[in-house]
């Protein structure tokens, strides 16, 4: 019984949140890695573009809610998601036309692109705060739980409850679908292959008659989809606040780099590595320990390795450790 209770506590506070968070990071990191693979720069505007995508989705959600449109028990945000993706894709293509295309034409160094993307980041940052404000926004509706803690306790008779939030369930399911479609797209379709060809060897792709502008445009569209989905899921699961998306930039980049920049499979693995490290290191293990250890050994403290304030430091440490031993990431990524 104690063991089962420990397992439930572990699932409730570590496994489920980490898997959900990992899925969100993986989707974000996939975007970073695609941009790095195709356009060959680290896009610093990623976090704020995520905020933009989520913001557009929220605006549509509010609109739908005001019209009484609903897909109960699922959150209305899912209905608004495609609209968010379309608007974000248009914004990204517009950004590419006005900013990045110029630097591609003059064959600028990657660092110039990175600096340009920082400029884009600040603008995006401002735009989002200008439109929706810097504060918390609520847009989640529909059923809040798939499994409620109390129902679980009643059904199983365990003293520990297991709560499985709808947002977590949706996050996990959506991430699986999105990743499956993305990999099918990259590996099986001609468009995906031309993207991979472009990432493998740009010169050769050009000399094979592949239109670079089209590859770039398709990349931005896919990135817009990934980023809007990731941003909306994160907002549903936690809360929407523009600044948290800017902060997400660090774990997202850590995920992409740990997995191997430019490698989509690595981005997913990296997302989960970072998420699990962050959650396990900042979790107070007392509850689980109390169930598992004999009474005499029960801890008096919280058994928390680090305060949650330090959770962003965890990504950094993981990043450094992995890069020390595998400089190209867990999966072989591209080197610059």
């Amino acid at each position, binding site marked *: 019984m104690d063991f089962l209770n420990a397992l439930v506590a572990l699932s409730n506070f570590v496994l489920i949140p980490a898997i959900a968070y990992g899925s969100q990071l993986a989707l974000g990191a996939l975007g970073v890695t695609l941009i790095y693979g195709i356009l060959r720069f680290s896009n610093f505007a990623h976090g704020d573009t995520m905020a933009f995508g989520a913001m557009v989705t929220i605006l549509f959600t509010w609109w739908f809610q005001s019209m009484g449109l609903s897909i109960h028990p699922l959150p209305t945000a899912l209905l608004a998601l495609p609209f968010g993706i379309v608007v974000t894709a248009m914004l990204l293509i517009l950004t590419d036309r006005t900013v990045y295309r110029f630097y591609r034409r003059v064959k600028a160094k990657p660092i110039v692109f990175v600096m340009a993307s920082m400029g884009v980041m600040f603008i995006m940052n401002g735009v989002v705060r200008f439109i929706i404000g810097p504060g918390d926004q609520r847009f989640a509706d529909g059923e809040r739980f798939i499994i409620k803690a109390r129902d679980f306790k009643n059904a199983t008779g365990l003293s520990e409850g297991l709560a499985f939030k709808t947002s977590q369930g949706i996050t996990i399911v959506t991430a699986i679908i999105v990743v499956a479609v993305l990999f099918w797209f990259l590996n099986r*379709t001609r468009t995906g292959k031309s993207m991979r060809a472009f990432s493998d*060897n740009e010169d*050769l792709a050009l000399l*094979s*008659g592949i239109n670079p502008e*089209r*590859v770039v445009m398709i990349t931005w*569209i896919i990135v817009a989809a990934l980023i809007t989905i990731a941003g909306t899921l994160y907002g549903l699961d936690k809360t929407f606040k523009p600044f948290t998306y800017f902060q997400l930039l660090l774990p997202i980049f850590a995920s992409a780099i740990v997995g191997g920049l430019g490698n989509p499979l690595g981005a997913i693995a990296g997302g989960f590595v970072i998420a699990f490290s962050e959650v396990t290191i900042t979790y107070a293990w007392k509850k689980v320990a109390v169930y598992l250890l004999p009474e005499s050994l029960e801890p008096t403290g919280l058994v928390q390795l680090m305060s949650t304030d330090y959770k962003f430091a965890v990504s950094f440490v993981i990043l450094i450790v992995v890069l020390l031993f595998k400089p190209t990431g867990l999966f072989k990524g591209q080197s610059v």
Partner: protein
Amino acid sequence: MIVIEDVHKHFGGFRAVDGATLTIQDQSITGLIGPNGAGKTTLFNVIAGVLKPTSGRITMAGEDITGLPPHELFHKGLLRTFQIAHEFGSMTCRENLMMVPGGQSGERLWDTWFGRKRIADEERALKAKADEVLEFLTISHISNLRAGEISGGQKKLLELGRTMMVDAKIVFLDEVGAGVNRTLLYTIADAIKRLNEERGYTFVVIEHDMDFIEKICDPVICMAEGKVLAEGTLAEIKANEQVIEAYLGTGLKNKKEDA
């Protein structure tokens, strides 16, 4: 016919191509020789649109193609290969070849989802074509290997195969023979000759191997210091004093005149 008129390509103060003027006749196999650093590869890059010329004009069949990007030149039938073989390392040899005629309907996002029938037909035709090319080059056995894992010589053949995936009008080969053994070199030479005779391809070949040049090239152009030094049949070139001085060497005499 490609006409190159007074093309310059300068990198800072360095004049890699310094006023090259030459004409490439249709259906010829032109050999381009010259010492290292003569500007042969740079000239290729300028013609193929990888580099923009500092000045000068390039026309193809009377049409100005100066400074067009590579993928547009490709669709006009102008192809090139690289001195160091390039490949899409993560794809199989067959997929490498099938990538070639860029701009298929499968590359449009819309068609990926809503034009599946058309794409399937195109892919089938491409696959048949790729298999035919692999057969022609006697490398059918590596069609399912990843291109990153095959040998250097096989990569060279794959490069040549890439040019055979479309009806190329003119192909620029940059040292196809470098790092390739004799037998394979002659396979490549035969393939070039057959493509020239059977399909009417025009070739421009950079090569250092004189046997190879002798076997397939006419005329031969010798470049040095960014300029065209001499042009003619191989015999004429071999007899040319300046060429001997700059490139072929006498083997005995060690003439030192002003360059």
